[in-house]
């Protein structure tokens, strides 16, 4: 199928999802309010940490806010796309409705990952970007095209890593049927990404760099924002993201061979 067809299908995914969500007006409003309160709460928590000290792990409050901004964007992306779609994989497999997806002449990973969106996550993405713009101002960061490209590249890589991790865990449902808890653990690890990696002990730093690559998800993009990131760090982030995306895709097709569908 051509790319243009996928774009057309995605525009229909968007319109049907937004229409579905807007059927429940109060729920959307509550989600919007939750997004705003969640950001306020996180910033408040950060101010408490910095109340008696100027820096944590070598990061000043103004710099730590960048991590918060990136975390808010990623959380927004998680809430907009990953949460409504990837948690549904478990449901599709348990109830056997994955059958309908697998029988469509379209890439099943594309369908299952992007079919739904939750519009409230958009607000978080906007708030995250607004916070980043504010951070650029207070940290007196000079912007140029190279800076924007680097920031967006690392941000895209972060999204890629996070998506792949979530998708990998959800795919294991084909064997284990129920893996809600594993995706919840991943989400709680993402909360850790709100704080600079240097603020943790060495052993935790190693764990969050290798096993659950939180470092790649929030810290490196933040360092790029502050001009602290090394080129090798950015390259590793790109490579890690590519590897994760390829592995998650291969793993999906491998797992489908073991799909037995639910009984009727």
């Amino acid at each position, binding site marked *: *199928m051509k790319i243009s067809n996928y774009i057309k299908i995605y525009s229909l995914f968007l319109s049907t999802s937004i229409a*579905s969500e807007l059927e429940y007006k109060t729920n959307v409003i509550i989600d919007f309010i939750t997004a705003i309160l969640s950001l306020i709460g996180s910033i408040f928590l950060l101010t408490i940490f910095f109340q008696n000290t100027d820096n944590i792990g070598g990061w000043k409050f103004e710099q730590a806010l960048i991590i918060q901004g990136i975390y808010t964007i990623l959380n927004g992306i998680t809430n907009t796309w990953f949460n409504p779609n990837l948690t549904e994989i478990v449901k599709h497999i348990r109830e056997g409705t994955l059958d309908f997806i697998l*029988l469509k002449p379209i890439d099943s990973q594309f369908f299952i990952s992007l079919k739904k969106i939750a519009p409230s996550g958009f607000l978080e993405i906007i708030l995250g970007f607004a916070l980043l713009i504010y951070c650029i101002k207070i940290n007196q960061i000079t912007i140029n095209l190279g800076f924007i490209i680097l920031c967006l590249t690392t941000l895209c890589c972060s999204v890629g890593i996070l998506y792949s991790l979530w998708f990998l865990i959800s795919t294991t449902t084909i064997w284990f049927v129920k893996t809600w808890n594993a995706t919840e653990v991943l989400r709680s690890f993402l909360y850790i990404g709100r704080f600079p990696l240097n603020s943790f002990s060495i052993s935790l730093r190693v764990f969050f760099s290798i096993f659950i690559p939180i470092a790649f998800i929030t810290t490196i993009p933040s360092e790029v924002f502050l001009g602290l990131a090394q080129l090798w760090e950015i390259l590793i982030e790109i490579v890690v993201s590519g590897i994760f995306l390829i592995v998650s895709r291969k793993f999906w097709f491998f797992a489908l061979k073991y799909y037995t569908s639910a009984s009727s």
Partner: protein
Amino acid sequence: MEENIIQVENLSKSFDISSKKPGLKGTLKHFFKRETKSIEVIKNINFGIKKGEIVGFLGANGAGKTTILKILCGLIYPSQGKLSVAGNLPYKRRSNFLKNITLIMGQKQQLIWDLPPIESFYLNAAIYDIEKFEAKKRIKKLSDMLEIEDELYIPVRKLSLGQRMKSELLAALIHKPNILFLDEPTLGLDINAQRNLRKFLQIYNKETDATICLTSHYMKDITSLCKRVICIHEGCLTYDGKLEKLLKKISPVKDILIICKTEKDAIELRNSGFIIKNQNQKEITITIKKNSIKSTLKNILNKFEIEDLYINEPPVDEIIGNILVKNKV
């Protein structure tokens, strides 16, 4: 000779299934050391289906009918055997194969729950790469045939089960598939909705020459749609042929309803050694072997004063029920 559109040779499928003993001890054992065993749910099955045929798959729950349909449409990998559907290996799920088939499951739905069905139809049309104008034409035609023009714009969650099933059918047929796999499509529908659905499938088959593979526990679905049936019992194919022939083969008896003129005749007839199926004052239904109809009738007409007499086949449900329960093929 016309080539088969579906060809299955020596098809087998095994599943690893875990079992658990009752009680806490059993639960703990199941949690720490799960015992699984391989169960062969499809055993060395062979059949071929020609283009335009409507074939009913008969069998009790768990016989393996749905598994066969799911293997044929490419959802499940077969463990052994050769199969070809419209010239394709189904489990490869190639785009041109998927555009040729559809699967409708009575107990599962693909329509977007909170939106009117028309939104799902246009989404499916885009997935199957159908132009909007053409999609509009197909939706109009199919909704006319299914009589759901008014329901197209009502959210799916507000539709009745019958209307929802019709909408599911429309969503599944928008790409004009040549092969339809229907797994209990009339499940839960009322008599009228069942009849309408069957009527639609008959017309659709006639107009498009589509091949239909159907499983159903409603015998009326099978008897009114399928000339040919395939019986499956514990994963084995036990019969493949005409439904009519099957009914003759497994039911070598007929029911005769006799209305006697007097109570006295009725009492005497009851005591004449026939197998009595039903009795109600002067009305008696006896079951006799098909090859002895002539002599039995002669005997009855000579001995008793008869007001009226009807010869019936036993109800199809009863006969097929016997196949499902006792595997009397």
